[in-house]
């Protein structure tokens, strides 16, 4: 199926409309997780295996879990979903209608775009007596620890200071 990447990006936009129409945050978190899964599949389709794995583990497995139980602490008794009340439902329907109209208009333009989405993963390297096969994105991300040594130090220090900031904020004084 040639249009699988385009269909996935349309599903991504629909998921984003789902939490941007502002239902109760627990349902917004659900829509964000679904959008995150669709986004990971988009990244995987373009050959970014390592980046998709990082996104799944760090983003969906770490930050969304933290969002989930923080939202569970600050939730009301009757959370409003997409079907309860005209504001959220109206926002959702307007967003979906906008996306459908835009997709139909773009597909009717019938233009040729010179971007190839295939074979974007592997690199063949020739080293010494033999040849090898590496994935481009994991080698590129590994260069963070080689060319970007100072960036790793700064980011690690930022995370460390961030933990202290969080402790001081939650302590309350």
């Amino acid at each position, binding site marked *: 199926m040639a249009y699988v990447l*385009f269909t996935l*990006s349309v599903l*991504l936009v629909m998921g984003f409309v789902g939490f941007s129409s502002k239902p109760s945050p627990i349902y917004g978190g659900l829509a964000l997780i679904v959008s995150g899964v669709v986004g990971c599949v988009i990244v995987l389709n373009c050959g970014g295996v390592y980046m998709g794995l990082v996104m799944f583990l760090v983003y969906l497995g770490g930050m969304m879990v933290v969002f989930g139980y923080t939202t569970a602490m600050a939730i009301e008794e009757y959370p409003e979903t997409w079907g309860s009340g005209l504001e959220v439902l109206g926002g959702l329907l307007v967003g979906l209608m906008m996306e459908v109209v835009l997709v139909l208009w773009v597909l009717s333009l019938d233009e040729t775009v010179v971007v190839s989405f295939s074979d974007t993963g592997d690199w063949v390297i020739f080293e010494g007596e033999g040849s090898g096969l590496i994935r481009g994105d994991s080698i590129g991300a590994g260069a963070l620890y080689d060319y970007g040594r100072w960036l790793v130090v700064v980011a690690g220090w930022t995370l460390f200071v961030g933990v202290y900031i969080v402790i001081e904020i939650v302590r309350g004084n």
Partner: protein
Amino acid sequence: MTPTHMNIMLAFTISLLGMLTYRSHLVASLLCLEGMMMSLFIMATLIASNTHFPLVNIMPIILLVFAACETAVGLALLISISNTYGLDYVHNLNLLQC
């Protein structure tokens, strides 16, 4: 620019609009901020794959690191608001009366 890139930029814009409008909860705006970071991550990874430039893959990883910091600080503020007022309703934040 392909329709796929247009859709991802549209997702960023929709999250931006969602973050700038308040309904009742504050954590819904933090969720839209997370959506913005995620769409930026996807866009940068697609560009790194399509232009066959592996070193650009450093940028989405560092973006994810700083987005995690930002999420932690935002949630800490949310928890302190929730401890003071009971819920994270936006109309409770009325100390600055202007």
